[in-house]
């Protein structure tokens, strides 16, 4: 087992950052800690690295209890959101730092250090920048150097704290794919923290959704996305339309309409419910295809690249409904602002419970 966290609790004055969290990460796994800001995910990462001490609980790295070890003895690679490169050292010196501070007995020779740094620089595609200083590099380049620096000491575990959030969208995407490829090559057990669900879905082997210091759900991206266990997870993983209603006699009210309740709520007593539909699961048509279709008026059309976003006023609904349709469909249907269309809600997800958006 790569990382084993047992009952980690951390309280700061006034609030509980982590509430009895237990989590295992398999060797060689790339795990995403996903959650809104302030949910405790960064604190958890810092506790694994030894930069914070937990109030309770144990951290076991590769079958060794490291709970009370200082960060320098943990052999953990940490990549910071804002790179944290050493400004006064060259790229080469930055990467070599972890090797040069080893005790004399363990320290590799100069030639070995050089080889290792050069190898890492190639790995992160920065071999041209050896003699540069961090200030001469772009954000994406800096983060790659930071990654090489963290990998230089052969860490048991690689921890990345929102590694791409300070970069612009295009670079972020590029680096994301590149990191996935790199991980497939080197297979170091890694945890990365993010608040960006797309990043987590695209990059991770497994996602752990965290909220208010607790784990809400964990699973593969597919599992988490397709079978969210609660409203929070569903909502956090993408854009949503919410319809507040009630469950009653195996039916869920959805504005003036009713749909069949999901199996687990078939025999539930009457209570408030929330029905969710993702914008891209909404069908738009000029022809009514079923009884359940709603009638809507297009209030707004938004160009979103490959998709077109529509904002609709639906008959009998209090709030407007957001839909996303392929650009082709939009052109074929010759839609325009003010048009009346038929709207079908697919894959409606119903939750009951306290969580309210």
């Amino acid at each position, binding site marked *: 087992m790569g990382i084993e966290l047992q009952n980690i609790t951390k309280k700061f004055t006034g609030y509980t950052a982590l509430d009895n969290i237990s989590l295992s990460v398999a060797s060689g796994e790339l795990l995403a800690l996903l959650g809104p800001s302030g949910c405790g995910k960064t604190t958890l990462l810092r506790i694994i690295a030894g930069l914070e001490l937990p109030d309770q609980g144990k951290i076991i790295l590769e079958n060794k209890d490291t709970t009370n070890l200082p*960060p*320098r003895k943990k052999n953990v690679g940490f990549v910071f959101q804002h790179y944290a*490169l050493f400004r006064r050292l060259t790229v080469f010196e930055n990467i070599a730092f972890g090797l040069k*501070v080893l005790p004399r007995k363990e320290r590799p020779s100069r030639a070995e250090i050089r080889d290792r740094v050069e190898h890492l620089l190639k790995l992160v595609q920065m071999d041209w920048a050896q003699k540069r200083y961090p200030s001469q590099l772009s954000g994406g380049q800096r983060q790659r150097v930071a990654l090489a620096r963290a990998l230089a000491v052969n860490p048991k575990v690689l921890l990345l704290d929102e590694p791409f959030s300070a970069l612009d969208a295009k670079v972020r995407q590029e680096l994301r794919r590149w990191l996935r490829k790199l991980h497939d090559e080197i297979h170091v057990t890694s945890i990365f923290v993010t608040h960006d669900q797309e990043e987590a879905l695209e990059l991770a082997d497994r996602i752990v959704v965290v909220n208010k210091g607790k784990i809400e759900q964990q699973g593969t991206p597919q599992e988490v996305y397709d079978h969210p266990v609660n409203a929070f997870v569903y909502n956090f993983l993408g854009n949503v339309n919410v319809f507040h209603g009630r469950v009653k006699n195996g039916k869920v009210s959805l504005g003036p309409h009713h749909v069949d309740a999901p199996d687990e709520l078939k025999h539930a007593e009457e209570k408030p419910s929330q029905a969710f539909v993702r914008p891209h699961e909404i069908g738009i048509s000029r022809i009514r295809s079923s009884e359940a279709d709603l009638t809507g008026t297009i209030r707004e059309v938004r160009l979103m690249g490959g998709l077109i976003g529509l904002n609709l006023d639906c008959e009998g609904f209090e709030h407007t409904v957001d839909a996303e349709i392929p650009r082709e469909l939009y052109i074929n249907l010759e839609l325009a602002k003010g048009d009346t269309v038929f709207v079908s809600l697919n894959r409606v997800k119903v939750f009951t419970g306290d969580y309210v958006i």
Partner: protein
Amino acid sequence: MGLFQTKRRNILPGFGLSMGYTVFYLSAIVIVPLSMIFFNTVPMGWEPFVHAVTAPRVLASYRLSFSTAFFAAVFDAAAGLLTAWVLVRYRFPGKQFLDALVDLPFALPTAVAGICFATLYSPMGWLGETLIKWNIEIINSATGIVVALVFIGFPFVVRTIQPVLEEVEQEIEEAAHCLGATRWQTFRKILLPHLFPALLTGSTLAFARGIGEYGSVIFIAGNLPMKTEIAPLMIMSKLDQFDYAGASAVALVLLLISFSMLLVLNAVQEWQQKEYR
């Protein structure tokens, strides 16, 4: 028309005006008064000039002034770094008070400081009494001059390091720790190089201040010819004897040496800074 096109537009407006203003004020406040030293010296002729500035007593005073100022600056660098470190890194009761104390040598008339030192270190003073038993003489010695100059130069170092130390991100140190560096290695290899330019600036200021310091030193130095006479005192004693030209000559050499040393230190700093920007 080429003549007008070559004039590049600067993004910051008003370069001409502000530069003119700077040059004017530097001239009025620094260059013109100091040039008087030069013009006072010229009429005296080359040989009397050389004679005046190479007199053994004068040479001894230069040596003393520069060496004591140097040692005081080195001491200030270490002590100032430590003080700035404590003031930035820790929170403790009375921190504000301690922070305010640092500036006191700036505000205090230096003669007052001199008298305080003289009282404290005199053979009957609180500290002097004990030190004399160990055969350490502060009064009437070069050590005493260093003690006074350390006091005078201390705030320069603290106040130049403080802001730079405050800027150091916590993450930088955390990164070093995660890479296996001990606290000492982190300080030695990451923080110190980062603080070095500020440390150099601060101790240069302390050094420059030490060379020119007069008030506090004369009370503690005893002013023994060839032994504890500092260069500014040589100038004063020449003025006392109405030897204005001689005083100017000594001052001119002091000025030239100080200026060239400051110039070199500034160049070192420039060179230090250049690469990382």
